[in-house]
Every structure is written in C-alpha cells, then in structure tokens.
C-alpha cells in the first residue's frame, strides 16, 4: 500500500522505519475523519487529493477488492506492540524511573512553522498538541517541572521559567503564537543548558524540541554545544515536523534522547505523548538524593488570608506552608516565601503506578478460540461486554497472565493506559497471598533489611502491604543487580 502514486511530496519525510510509521497513520485515519477533518476552512473540492491521501485508508483483500482498513484492529495491534516494548525495557530496572523531571520544551517558531502542510499551520498544530502534552505531563509526573522556550528570528527566548502549573504555561504559550525568521538549534541549546545547569542534581534534565525547520542558523559550532549538553547530562529529544535532519539525529544520539519525525497530525500527537511517561532513569544521569518536602494541611474554612501565588485575599481553602506559614492555593507547588516543595500524599501515590506497572495481557490465540473443547468466558470480565460476535470474525480477547480473566480490546487499553489495575487480580484475594509469601521468604534469605521494620514502616505510611510486597520484589531485583 505504500507504493502507489503521488509519493514525491512525502518521500523525504519518511525515516528508515517507514513501514511501521505508515501503519500508525492508517490506524488513526478514522479518528481524524470523526472530528470533522482538519481542513475545516476548505471546501471538499478545494482540497488537493495529495493532501488527503484517501487511498491510504483502503486495502486490497485476497480477491483483489478494495476494502476500508480495519483501523481499530490496527490501532490495537500497534498499542500492544508499544506496550510490550515499554514493559520489556522496564522489567530489568523497575524501580529506577526518572520521576522528578525538569523538562524544557523548545518550540520552533521560525518561518518554517508557518508551513501549511499541517492544517491550518504547523505552528497551530504544535501549540494545540503542546497544550495536551503539558496537561498529560503533569498528570503523570506531578512532582516535575516544565519550562517553555521559543526560537524565532534566529534567537531563543525563554517564554516561561521552570514551574509546576500547567495553566501558567498554556496561557503563556497561547499568547505568543507568531513566527518569523530562521531557527537556531545552538542558541536554544545554549539557553536551556544555562537554565538546566542550575537545577538540583537529583532531577532529570530533559529538553524536548519541536522542530519545524530543515536547517539551523547558528552563531558558532553547534557540535560544541551538543558536547556541552552531553557533559551536563541533559537528555535531548526532537520531534520533527518536516524531514529527518542529521544534526537533530546526532544531537539525540549523543545525549541519549529519541528522534522522531511526524507524518501527520495524529502521528505528531502520538510521538509527542510518548514523552509524557517518565523515561527509565539512567543511574549516572541523576544522583539519588533526599529532597526536603512539606505536607501542608488544608487551611480551616472561613479564615481570611493573602495567598503567596496570586497575592489576593481569599476566604477559606488553600494550604499553609509548614515552615513559614505562608498560604498557597494549589498543590504541588513551591512555597513562594521559603522555597520548600509542598506536596500532598496523593501526589506521591500518583507516581506509584510507574514503579509497579501491571503486566501486559496475553492475546488469546485463535486456535483456542475456535476449539469447542475449551469453554471460554462469554463476557469481558471488566465491562461485561459480550466477547462473542457471531458475524464478526475479529473477536479479539486478551487474558491476564496472573488471574486468567478475559478482557475485550477496549478494557485492555483502558486498564493499561489509565486504570493501572487488573480488575481480575483485584477481585481475587488468593492471587495476592502466594505472591506475598514468596517475596517474604526470598527476602528473609537475603537478610538485607529488617523486614519487620520495613513492613511496619510501609504499613504505617500508607498502610500498605501490597506496597511492601512489591517493594521487596524491587529490593530483591536491585540487590541482585548491584551485588
């Protein structure tokens, strides 16, 4: 399907793994149509066929007939591949994740950002998805920080300082949407390097560049700057909007980041959101450390005080910094007076699913599905949707390897991408008992820590045996790795 016709425009955009990318595009095609297409301003007859690429949503079947692609299945296959690769990379170092991240998003607002191959323009598309990304980022990394930098007229400008409030960044970004001049990778990296060098050593330093231009116009040697970033352990990633360019690839390879080029809008969104979950932490990239934090209590209702963040008098609500007693409106934040990081225990809990991910479900083989001797469950265990589609041959089902319950496609995706619990395992007390015992005995044999103490400690904190149990697992792995 990739061989037909008018390819010349898109040829340069494909990177070496073009086929896989192409699959991704097909999978999203339907979604795009659903929200009314992205060429809203144009009538159907004004749109060029080359831009719409309608032939890509067709597929030739065995008898040579053209059929619309089953986008749902493809989408799901692609999701499972991503899940598997994520899981396999995380099993070896489960607890080691860069949970405290300091990320600068560099947005290229050079002349190239006005190009209209993304509708209505690259710049608008980038801004739209950057907003989604910022919100998703803070949802997944509540203790992290983002800063925004723009490149315009060959100069890099800091739009927002590192901060933890998504609203603040989104507002600043939306107010500054115009583009002109050249792009300069070196200026942007120099600026960001200056800022990121000041952050505490336990933080993971990252730069995410959304690059529209096909060139960089630098005042000096960009290679030196790249080496400087590498030395400062700044992980640089680039999402390109035009073609792959060498300097970006080199930058990402040197600093340990990832370089991807978007084919279209939905692909861009997908590539961008891949940067939201915390990357596996590389031990030498950030020093383990204890961070002092405050757990403020909610101020009593009806008390009037002036908040530090908005400098307004407010009645009730808000939180009081335990060190300097200043009032802040939202958590997590940094106290505006004494600089103490203020969080609440749910913010810490929000990150635990990164540390204890649930196993991917296995696809139930079709041989088993068609075997009349196996009586398979008729309903999805999660949502009670029927798993038997007499007319539909693609009655996909996934099974949890631990509790052996069967789930439908949608539950499989929901469970792994949002819920982070297996409903089957959670509905079975027995599944937990043996797991816990096995860790207990292995742990006792190791005699690394006083198990009783740790148990009590964890139980006291969140009252959590499961946490202790999984922690044992992690400790065990960690010990084997280090000893």
């Amino acid at each position, binding site marked *: 399907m990739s061989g037909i016709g008018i390819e010349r425009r898109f040829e340069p955009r494909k990177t070496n793994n073009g086929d896989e990318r192409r699959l991704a595009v097909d999978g999203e095609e339907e979604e795009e149509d659903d929200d009314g297409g992205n060429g809203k301003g144009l009538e159907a007859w004004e749109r060029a066929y080359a831009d719409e690429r309608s032939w890509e949503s067709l597929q030739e079947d065995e008898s040579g007939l053209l059929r619309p692609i089953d986008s749902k299945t493809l989408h799901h296959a692609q999701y499972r591949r991503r899940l598997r690769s994520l899981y396999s990379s995380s099993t070896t170092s489960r607890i080691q994740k860069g949970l405290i991240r300091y990320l600068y998003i560099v947005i290229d607002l050079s002349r190239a950002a006005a190009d209209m191959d993304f509708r209505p323009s690259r710049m608008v598309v980038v801004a739209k998805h950057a907003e989604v990304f910022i919100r998703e980022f803070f949802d997944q990394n509540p203790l992290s920080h983002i800063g925004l930098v723009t490149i315009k007229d060959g100069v890099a400008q800091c739009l927002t300082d590192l901060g933890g409030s998504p609203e603040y960044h989104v507002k600043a970004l939306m107010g500054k949407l115009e583009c002109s001049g050249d792009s300069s990778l070196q200026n942007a990296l120099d600026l960001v390097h200056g800022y990121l060098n000041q952050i*505490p050593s336990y933080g993971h330093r990252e730069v995410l560049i959304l690059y529209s231009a096909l060139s960089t116009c630098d005042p000096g040697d960009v290679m030196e700057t790249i080496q400087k970033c590498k030395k400062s352990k700044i992980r640089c990633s680039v999402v390109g909007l035009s073609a792959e360019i060498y300097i970006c690839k080199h930058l990402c390879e040197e600093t340990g980041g990832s370089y991807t080029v978007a084919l279209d809008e939905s692909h861009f969104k997908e590539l961008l959101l891949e940067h939201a979950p915390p990357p596996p932490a590389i031990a030498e990239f950030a020093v383990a450390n204890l961070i*002092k*934090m405050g757990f403020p209590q909610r101020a009593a209702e009806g008390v009037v005080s002036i908040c530090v963040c908005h400098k307004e008098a407010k009645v009730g609500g808000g939180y009081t910094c335990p060190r300097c007693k200043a009032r802040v409106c939202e958590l997590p934040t940094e106290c505006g007076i004494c600089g103490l990081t203020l969080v609440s225990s749910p913010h810490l809990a929000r990150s*635990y699913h990164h540390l204890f991910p649930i196993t991917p479900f296995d696809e139930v083989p079709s041989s088993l599905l068609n075997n009349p001797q196996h009586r398979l469950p008729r309903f999805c265990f999660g949502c009670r949707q029927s798993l038997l589609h007499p007319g539909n041959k693609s009655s996909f089902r996934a099974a949890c390897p631990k509790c052996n319950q069967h789930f439908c496609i949608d539950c499989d995706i929901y469970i792994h991408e949002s819920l982070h619990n297996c409903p089957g395992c959670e509905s079975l007390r027995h599944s*937990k008992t043996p797991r816990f015992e096995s860790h207990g005995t292995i742990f006792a044999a190791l005699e690394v820590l006083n198990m009783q103490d740790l148990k009590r400690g964890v139980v006291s*904190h969140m009252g959590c045996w499961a946490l202790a149990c999984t922690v044992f697992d992690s400790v065990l792995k960690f010990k084997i790795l280090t000893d």
Partner: protein
Amino acid sequence: MASIPSKLYSDDVSLLMLLLDTNPFLWTGANTTTTSLPFPGFLTHVLSFLNSILLLNQLNQVVVIATGVNSCDYIYDSSSSLQKTADSSENGRMPILCSRLLSKLEEFVIEDERLSKDDSPEGIVSSLLSGSLSLALCYIQRVFRSGPLHPQPRILCLQGSPDGPEQYVAIMNAIFSAQRSMVPIDSCVIGAQHSAFLQQASYITGGVYLKPQLPDGLFQYLSTVFATDLLSRNFLRLPKPVGVDFRASCFCHKKTIDMGYICSVCLSIFCKHHKKCSTCGSVFGQALGDTSSTDRKRKTPET
C-alpha cells in the same frame, strides 16, 4: 442501552454504579453490636433506594456490583434485565428487580464464602473495594464508548468493612482514573469507623462522603443525599468534606509529619535524613531542597 432513542438523554439521566459491601464479618459474628442494622434490614433500605432511582427518571440505569471478601462480581444491571423482560407490565418491574438481585446476591455470597474455606481469617477482614471499583470504572468506560449521548455515571460505595491496607496502591490508581474521566465517587460508610480510602476518593473525585449517624434511617440518608443526579447537585447543599488529612507519615517511625525527606528515586518518605534509602537501596548525598530554590534563578512573579 442502544434501543433507547438517544435524543431523550438529557443531562439529568444517571447511571448509578452501586458497590455493595457483602463482607459477612461485618454483618455476623462478634461485630453485630457495632452496627445496629441487620443485613436483611440493610437490604430493604438498599432495594427501596434502587427502586426510587429507577422511578426518578425512566432512563436512569442502575448497576450493582458486590464487593466480597474473596471476589467481586456484577449482580444486577437494570439495562440488561429491561431488555429481557420488555413485555412485562409496569408494575411487574419492581418485584423482578428485587427477586433477580436477591437471587444473584445469594449465589454470590455462597460462592464468596466457598472461596474463603481454605484459610480462616481472624476477626474482620477487609472487602475487595479495589476490585469492585476497577470493575465499575471498566463498565463506565464502556458506557462512554457507546456514543456521545449516555447517562451521567457516578459510583456509590456502600462500605462497611475496614480499609484493606494492601489495596492502597490499587485504590489510589482507581481514584485517579475516575478523576481523569470525571466520575465522582460517593461514599456511604455504614461500618464502625471512618474509611480513610473513601474520604480521599470522594474528596479527589468531587463526590460526597457520608457516615450516617443512625444506620436505621439509611434509606432517608440515601434518598436525600445520594439520589440526586449530578446536575441537580449544583443547587443542593450536600454534606461538605470535613478534614481530609493529606499529610503523610514517615516510613521509619510511622509518625505523621508535615515536613520530611523524600527519596528522589522511589519517593519513600522519611522524617529525618538517612544515608541510604531503606526501600530502594539508593545511597544519598547531602540533603537538598533547602538549597534548591536559592541556587536556582528566582521565579519571576506570575502576572
């Protein structure tokens, strides 16, 4: 669900996911003194409540999930039973709800008890709230997928058992997922003590947390506080959350602290500085945090 004309769905149509705690240790044994309400009486209140929800709006939907000690399962879905008994007369619907729900509940309780035979737990054990919450959220996602017009879902936990500490991570995961899909979790605690998990769940998701003082009047509590749809809630003065304590306690002495140290690798909490993290084994340098804001450039005021 699909057979109903979609334009009839207005913003006051509700989908109520009721999570029913069927923990036998709560209702029988040594604990009968703490709850003055026996199980049959409790069920009468609940059934009347479910009927009143269905009477409030003909499109309202009720799904009941039993939260057992060893398992969780769906025991009633008003949408599926409506389809099967479409020909039944109007006044035949109420008994059908009751009989169907009660027979499924009985099956469930027997099965749940059978599963627990091999190990005999002492005292009151917790029920699997994390399981039934996860099931309810999966069901709600299916309703969301069914199209742009669907009833407004909410979850009501009728919980009596104490919190199961081993479920902490799973319950928090479920709470955050509910928060993302904007599904409120209401809690009505009928046990002896408050539930810290449900307090957090209702607070984070914007639901109502209530611990009735007089369990005998359960139906009145249910119908006045939990029967109203999400739209009408804006106009009511429902019970406000009182003092949800979000402070953490340290891993080392289980003291509740308002300032402490967090391991940057695994986010464990300690009350004083340690050389090594007892949870993940990381070795620490000197404490940071005091200095973090001073060696960083001072933030410009947000305007």
